[in-house]
């Protein structure tokens, strides 16, 4: 398989991608829309994309997911999709009665040069008569990945924010906008309760913690409840500060910068808070922000307890971790934070792989983060696929794989246990609830990694010890 190593440098684009580690932008855009209250999303293009993406979501989130399509035919592809789009919108309104409609283009629409902004006038008319907010963005998959689509749609929604007076004076609460990146519903819930404990009032954009992880229905819900309301998005223009996760992806697209430009709200960008240090960084930053804006913050005992419990868990398990090597794959920001977490528990992130194209500088940053802990042999692969991962594994065999379900084939081939994290998780239950962020997320992750290592040793032991 030696001839497929040629894609490690980020700007080379030759030949086939074999078993990709990324997917397309409309998927991310649709997920972002699911985090806006009362919304429906329509993908402008052929119906296949919408069907595929729904199917993908459904098998990860195990929730019903409706995404409409403007269902291009061969003629539409030749003569343009306007009529289909407006028909689609009309039918969505009749059937779902949504408050918000998100429109994202697919490759087909983009290839024929469809531009939703051509239709702004018509959309405005409908918006007025039907009392609907439209949010749209272009999401050709041949530019960027699912993360690009996610951030672009989020940024498009952030454009709705209106500059307004600060509204906090009465309660001394820090008012934040939080752009949580493409984390799980479980993560969003965790982050929400974290800021609540701290006494911070925050608007999350998007927030699909309920819509994509809901309960049983007492009556049919055409649009699941939950999500950030348009009202609250508008009010984001009155926050003290915006916080955005994902230091790599934000260089390409930063929803928080929309608020900076339009509403003059300063922003900070932090890495995904996976692990103790990244969570410390977050909380410390929140504390500084509170001080800066003259607000109160409650660094409660509860939080300290969570932190020290996590530390305790690290200590308990460290013997199983040291000397262990892991391969991590997924989105660049996920890989960065996961690698940093692994370092802090003493596991060497020997291979880091992402399907995203990132700059050499960003590759260096991932390396440095890891080197900082004294692990100097790490291979970082960008713009890569699972065959590249397999090759790297042959060179430097890890004990563990950490990433989404798509790595199962690799895990199976080399007999390496796979700790599932990220998106998609389609071969296990609970992907939608999986929390990686905050002290609690790290706690759960630490237990799982330790147990995975123990289980492997236990199974390999000739004695079969029942206590470790």
């Amino acid at each position, binding site marked *: 398989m030696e001839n497929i190593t040629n894609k490690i440098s980020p700007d080379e684009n030759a030949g086939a991608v074999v078993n990709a580690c990324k997917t397309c932008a409309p998927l991310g855009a649709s997920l972002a829309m699911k985090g806006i209250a009362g919304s429906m999303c329509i993908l402008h293009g052929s119906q296949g994309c919408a*069907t595929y993406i729904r199917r993908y979501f459904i098998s990860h989130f195990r929730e*019903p997911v409706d995404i409409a399509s403007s269902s291009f035919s061969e003629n539409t592809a030749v003569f343009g999709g306007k009529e289909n789009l407006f028909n689609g919108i009309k039918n969505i309104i009749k059937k779902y009665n949504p408050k918000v409609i998100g429109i994202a283009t697919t*490759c087909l629409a983009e290839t024929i040069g469809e531009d939703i902004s051509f239709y702004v006038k018509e959309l405005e008319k409908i918006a007025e008569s039907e009392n609907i907010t439209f949010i749209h963005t272009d999401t050709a998959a041949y530019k960027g990945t699912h993360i690009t689509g996610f951030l672009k749609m989020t940024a498009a929604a952030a454009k709705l924010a209106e500059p307004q007076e600060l509204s906090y004076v009465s309660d001394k609460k820090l008012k934040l906008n939080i752009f949580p990146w493409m984390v799980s519903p479980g993560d969003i819930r965790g982050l929400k309760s974290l800021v609540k404990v701290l006494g911070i009032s925050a608007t999350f954009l998007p927030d699909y913690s309920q819509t994509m992880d809901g309960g049983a229905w007492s009556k049919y819900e055409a649009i699941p409840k939950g999500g950030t309301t348009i009202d609250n998005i508008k009010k984001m223009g009155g926050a003290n500060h915006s916080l955005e996760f994902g230091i790599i992806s934000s260089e390409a697209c930063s929803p928080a910068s929309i608020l900076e430009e339009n509403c003059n709200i300063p922003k900070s960008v932090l890495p995904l808070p996976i692990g103790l240090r990244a969570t410390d960084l977050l909380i410390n930053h929140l504390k500084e922000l509170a001080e800066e804006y003259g607000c109160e913050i409650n660094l409660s005992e509860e939080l300290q307890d969570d932190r020290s419990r996590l530390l305790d868990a690290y200590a308990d398990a460290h013997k199983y971790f040291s000397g262990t090597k892991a391969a991590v794959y997924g989105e660049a920001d996920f890989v960065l934070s996961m690698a940093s977490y692994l370092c802090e528990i003493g596991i060497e992130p020997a291979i880091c792989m992402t399907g995203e194209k990132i700059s050499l500088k960003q590759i260096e940053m991932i390396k440095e983060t890891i080197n900082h802990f004294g692990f100097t042999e790490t291979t970082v692969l960008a713009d890569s696929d699972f065959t590249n991962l397999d090759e790297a594994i042959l060179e430097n065999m890890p004990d563990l794989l950490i990433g989404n379900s798509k790595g199962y084939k690799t895990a199976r081939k080399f007999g390496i246990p796979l700790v599932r994290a990220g998106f998609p998780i389609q071969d296990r239950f609970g992907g939608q609830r999986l929390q990686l962020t905050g002290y609690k997320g790290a706690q759960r992750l630490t237990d799982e990694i330790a147990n995975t290592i123990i289980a492997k040793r236990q199974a390999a032991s000739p004695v079969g010890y029942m206590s470790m």
Partner: protein
Amino acid sequence: MADIDIKKSENLKEQVMDKYPSKVLKKRSKQVVVKNTDPEQRIQANVRTVPGIITQRGCCYAGCKGVVLGPTRDIINITHGPIGCGFYSWLTRRNQTKPETPDGANYMQYCFSTDMQDQNIVFGGEKLLREAIQEAYDIFHPSAIAIFSTCPVGLIGDDIHAIAKEMKEKFGDCNVFGFSCEGYKGVSQSAGHHIANNQIFKHVVGTSENGRKGKFKINLLGEYNIGGDAFVIENLLERCGITLVSTFSGNSSIEHFAACHTADLNCIMCHRSINYVAEMLDTKYGIPWIKINFIGAKASAKSLRKIAAYFEDEELTKRVEEVIAEEMVGVDSVLEEIRPKTEGKSAMLFVGGSRAHHYQELFKELGMKILAAGYEFGHRDDYEGRRALSTIKLDADTRNIEELKVEPDPEQYNPRKTEEEKAALKEKGLEFSEYEGMWPDMPEGTFIIDDISQHETEKLIKELKPDLFCAGIKEKYAIQKMGVPMKQLHSYDYGGPFAGFAGAINWYREIDRTVNSKVWQLVGAPWEGTGKLHGSFIKKVLVEEEK
């Protein structure tokens, strides 16, 4: 469950249609039919989905790559397009395959994509495609490489067929062919099935004489080996002494396709996806086709008997009867245990292009009633039977799909049965080239619905309260949230196999587990006055508290 009759159902239909804008209403009211006594009753099918109405349908590319060629293990499939299309169709259909030797080629776990970028859209992607083909060839040296066009490719005008031809000549030992299956073609994945089958027929069928040898040689058409169904069927046929030359396309290999013209009978499972291939094989090589169905114990027995009847061989007939008798022992004993628990329950089935019909057999065996059924990408003939064929109008979408012109092969045409022999067999009850569709099996007052929408699903569930709903994963969670048990008929919820006698037994148990699951009783909380508290440990706690 509510009782249904024609009048009640017509009323319900009216209520369901009420919500639609007039244009949609006009269309949907022809696709939602209450079965009545009229023998000429029709349904509208295979028409475009209305934009904005959520459909369960996929695209032409999905049908071409995923369904027909997905289960073929030794062809490398390259998706020419942006990353998403290929990624979503990567090993998600649960087809199984078993190479004949441990080191036999199997590329099913691989997803090759050209991952087109901006510059390829602007300047064309032909160079990229050539490199991808070369790379796949260099790594694996496969005997065949297939290229699939996604939507953008059709528009930027890359000539995949010319490239395929060029690369095929260059390699010399690798068949390379392309499929122009852009997603916008046709109205559903069904168009993709057609394009896939046409190309296989054109480029592969008839190119090898090294087929499996035997006295009673058949092909199985339209069986995709979901959950291992094909393995069960293969085992049955083998025990009967019937040689399976090729399957389109469950557990298949390109070698088998190439030699399929050496078989003497074609047996069609899924009429939708493949009937035209059977027709072409008949015209070109003189191989007759019959409709069979291996879903359901009785249906499996009937199908085996049909095959035996065709070959008119006493020894074969005897062996078939022995195998059926052996198998029925197990079937009967499990049914005896389970049927009392499923008898009288009701089901709805909305899936695929044949499964919504085939699976009715299994429900009959369990004593369950069908309230409503329909396909996702069926055509009128799959509903009404082939009698509908003469009255199907070709629309623009259908005309875009190439119809191959096939003539008797000057050398290889060899009618396996003369017209007289066929007529004589027909006398005895063996129908050739015939499929009656689901119509005759649907009782009066039941709903037959093409490409059901979510709104219709929700209403039917609410009003008719079925005990079970069968569909695909996209419908699964909404249905379960409404408190109705759900069984996936595309991927079998990771269960199966459900074909043949062994599969029927699996199915009985699975349906028992599903419809009799206790989960559904927990839906209401006791403080809402809807849930019930029971169980001895709870009583004990209550009693102690009272003291």
